[in-house]
C-alpha cells in the first residue's frame, strides 16, 4: 500500500479552497504553517488571516475533510499564531488567481500602511492604475474597495496586511 508522504498532504491541501474565494487554495494564500507526519498521523497547522474571520471554522473543517481522504490513521488541524500571517505569504500563482477572481492582489508590504500605500492599485478588470481608494474596509475583513476611473467600475482588493 502507498505510504502517505508530506508531499501528498501538501498536494491535497492545494485542493482546499478559501470559502470566500473558491479558486484560490489555502496553500496559495500562504495560510499553511506546517505539515507534520509522525508515523501515519498527520498534524496540520494553519495561520489565521484575520482574527475575526468567520471562515476559520470552515477552513479547519475543509482541510480535515480533504486530508482524511488520504490513508492516514489520524488527522489533526490546528490554528496557530506561531508566525504572523501576512499577504507577503501569498504565492505568485495565488496573486494571479486573485486577479482572475476579480480581486486586485496586494502589493508587497513592508508593514507600513497608509493611504499612499493603498492608492494607485491596479484595476483587476482593465489593468489601469488610474484608480482611487474608496474605503480601506470592504465586504469582508480582507478586502478594500477601490474605484477605477478608466473603466468606471468599483473593484475590490485583497488588501496588504503585514
Amino acid at each position, binding site marked *: 500500500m502507498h505510504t502517505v508522504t508530506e508531499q501528498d498532504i501538501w498536494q491535497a491541501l492545494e485542493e482546499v479552497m478559501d470559502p470566500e474565494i473558491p479558486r484560490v487554495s489555502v496553500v496559495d494564500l500562504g495560510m499553511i504553517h506546517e505539515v507534520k507526519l509522525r508515523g501515519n498521523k498527520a498534524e496540520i497547522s494553519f495561520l*489565521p488571516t*484575520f*482574527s*475575526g*474571520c468567520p471562515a476559520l471554522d470552515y477552513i479547519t473543517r475543509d482541510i480535515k475533510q480533504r486530508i482524511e481522504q488520504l490513508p492516514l490513521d489520524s488527522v489533526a488541524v490546528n490554528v496557530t*499564531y*506561531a508566525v*504572523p*500571517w*501576512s499577504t507577503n505569504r501569498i504565492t505568485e500563482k495565488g496573486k494571479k488567481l486573485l486577479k482572475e477572481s476579480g480581486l486586485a492582489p496586494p502589493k508587497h508590504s513592508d*508593514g507600513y*500602511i*497608509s*493611504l499612499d500605500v493603498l492608492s494607485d492599485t491596479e484595476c483587476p478588470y482593465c489593468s489601469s492604475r488610474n484608480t482611487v481608494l*474608496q*474605503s*480601506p*474596509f*470592504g*465586504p469582508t*475583513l480582507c478586502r478594500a*474597495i477601490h474605484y477605477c476611473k478608466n473603466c468606471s467600475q468599483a473593484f475590490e482588493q485583497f*488588501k496588504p*496586511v*503585514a
Partner: protein
Amino acid sequence: MTASNEALKSLLYATADDLLILGHRNSEWTGLGPLLEEDIAFSSMAQDQMGQSLALYEILQRDLGERDPDTIAFLRPESEYRCCHFVEYPIGSYAFSLMRHFLFDQASYLRFAALAESSFKPLAFVSRKLLGEIKYHIMHGNTWMAQLSRGGEESHARMQSALNEAFPMALGIFEKLEHEEELVDAGVYAGSAQLRDLWLQHIEPALAHGGLALPELNAQEAGTAFFGGRKGFHSEHLGSLIEEMGAVLRSDPSADW
C-alpha cells in the same frame, strides 16, 4: 521569575474585555453610519475587535485553564469583567464614537506592540499578528480626525467637544492592573503608566495636526474619575450591555450554533 497565572489572567481579561465591549459598541453603528463607508468601517473594526478578544480568550482557556470563550464572553457576572469604563459608554454622537475609536486604537496598537515582546509567548505571538489588523484602524482614525477637525468651524467644534468628553475617560485605559508589579517584573507587560506616557506622545501630534488641544483636567478627571474597571467596578452602562449581549445564548445555553 515568571508571573503567576492570576497575574496573567488579570492582564488577559483587561485586554480582551476592552476589545469585546468596544467591539460590541462599535457594532451598534451597523446600519446607522453617517455614510456607507463609515458604516462598513465601524462594522469591520467591530468584527476585528471581537476576533481579537476571541484570540485572547482562547489563550485564557488553553494556557490558563479558564472556561470556553463563549461562556467567558457572555455569561460572566458584571463584577468579573475587567474592561475600562471608556469602552462601556453608549456610542453617543458619531463625533464621540470616532474620537473614542481614535484614542482607543492608538492605545490598543501600543499595548499590543509592547505585548509582542512579552515573555509570555502565547500572548506575544498573538499580539504580533493583531498589529497588522490594528494598523488599518489607526489609518482610519487618523484620516477622519484630520478631515473633520479641519473641515470647518462647526466640524472642528464638534471634534474638540468630543475630545473634551472622551479624553478623561480614555485615561481609564491606563488604570493599574491587579498584580501589575508582578507582570512588569516578569517581563510580561510594560506597565500601565509607561503605556499612558507613550500614548500621549503618539496622540498629541495627530491632535495638533487637526488643531485640537487636550482639555484642561481637574484633579479628579486627571486622577481616578473613570477608574474601577480593572478591579471589576463598572459604569452604569455595562450591566445592560452584558444583558443584551448574552440574551440569545442564555435563552438556550445548550443550543449548538
